[in-house]
């Protein structure tokens, strides 16, 4: 896809995709990434449905849009899921995503000892 929307919020990157992959399973919305020690999380709130297939994170954003936010878990409640209202940010500014399908990725880091790419979770 040419000129697809691509974004980057801290360790989380995303790109617009044409459609939800065949076989992707609808799942209850959850944080895209959770920090192991910081209590920070990247979360997509608003008009959005999450899907999973083979470990991939896929989101369908509806006509009302969705907001990618980086927040501390203590500032987040169940009520936050359904709104694009901004929650107090942890480190990274939020992004309003228009209607469309998106795939999210977590940035890697190379571990020279395991010789593997490992996901970065701050």
């Amino acid at each position, binding site marked *: 896809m040419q000129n697809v*929307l*691509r*974004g*980057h*919020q*801290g360790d989380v*990157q995303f*790109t617009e995709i044409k459609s939800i992959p065949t076989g992707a399973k609808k799942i209850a919305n959850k944080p895209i990434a959770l920090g*192991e*020690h910081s209590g920070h999380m990247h979360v997509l709130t608003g008009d959005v449905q999450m899907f999973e297939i083979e470990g991939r994170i896929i989101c369908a954003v509806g006509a009302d849009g969705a907001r990618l936010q*980086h927040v501390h878990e203590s500032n987040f409640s169940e009520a936050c899921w359904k709104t694009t209202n901004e929650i107090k940010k942890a*480190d*990274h*500014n*939020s*992004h309003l995503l228009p209607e469309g399908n998106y795939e999210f*990725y977590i*940035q*890697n*880091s*190379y*571990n*020279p*000892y*395991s*010789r593997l*790419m490992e*996901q*970065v*979770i701050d």
Partner: protein
Amino acid sequence: MKLETLTPAQEAKIPEIRNYWLNYILSCQNRLDKEKARKGIEWMYNYCGKKPPIIIFMDSPFGCQVAANFFLKFFENKPANIWANIRDNIWANIGDNIGDNIGANIGANIGDNIRDNIRDNIWANIGANIRDNIGDNIGDNIRANIGDNIGANIWANIRANIGDNIGDNIRANIGDNIWANIGDNIRDNIWANIWANIRANIGDNIGANIRANIGANIGANIGDNIGANIRDNKLTHYETSWMGCVGNYGWVAYIDYFLQLKLIHSDREKDFNAFKDLLLSGVFDMIQFDGLCIVSDMPTKIVRNAAGRLHNPNAPSVEFKDGWCQYNINGRALPSWIWEKAASGEISKELFLKESNSEIKGGIYEVMGQKRMMDLLGAIEVDTRTITHRNGDLEVVSLLKTKERFQEIGNDPFAWVKMVCPSTGTQYLQGVEPHHTNALDAIASLSPFKAEEYSFDLRS
């Protein structure tokens, strides 16, 4: 006829039961309920044809090993009056039947005996019942999602890891003075606590009589004497339980699913529930001797990585109430000095280069973090690129490498890419493969995007 399909409500119970058992330990919210545990252990010993044991409750698996050494090793070949005095008072207070059973000394480790009894009479029996009544597809589904999942999470990643580490720790110290090996921290923070725990438990078990006798006879000296004696002795590692520990959560949760949903009926259900109640009394593990059972409380803290392995670059990954803790990186148990020296700034380039153990070097790399490792090893900038993002932002990225090459990582240099967070201005370093020569290629290699696509509309 076998059950071949599950209703949506029955399917919904799969994650519910799995998460209940996982959270029972991983939440670190459950503590040992001594009365419930005592009832369960007495039931288990009775079930296996053994008389009720003396039960000693400790705060950690390491505390259990020290307590086992205290009871079994310290009194071995020591003046008879000490052991005889304690033993006689224990027997007098908890009944002749146990005294008769134990005889002159605490009996053998009966973990295998208990394992065989529980396995053959409960696990195998109900397991066969499930196979008879439940279709293979459902059985496999539940086993994969509950039994194996929990087994992998708890047995492989936590219980076995902790058990192995304690075993290694103790085995490594055999032949040496344990006091010197375990160090001042153990002596000051753990031994004092464990000794207080032993005293508290002797008090609980044998009451005021033994306190008066032991206290009056031996008095305050006993602490010093025992300390001095253990200091001069070797610590033995005693095998922990097969049945009656968090490692059983997998198969118990698997059976629990079928019984809770009444998908099978078993004449062993009462026995199963008694065993399940024992696990849900907050027992982490135990050492099972004929006549003596030493029980560990749950951890107070568990930190894991996304793969479920014990992992914490900043602090212990597992902690117990008495202060005993374990340090792990990606599931590997590593010595605490890495964290202590990293915190106090004592890790030097010389120390890093001199270290011959590559696992320890990998641990140092993780605990120090990329920035400090780069500073420590003296990396130099080998390439810099400016990326023009689609929203007009300019981002400068640099590729850095060490001058030296390191044998343990394939005779390559360490390499990092440096980037700047547009929200906070903070510089970040991420490790990259050492073959890169171009900073843009290097940063793109950390994402799903090719170098020519590495340009964003939204950045923060």
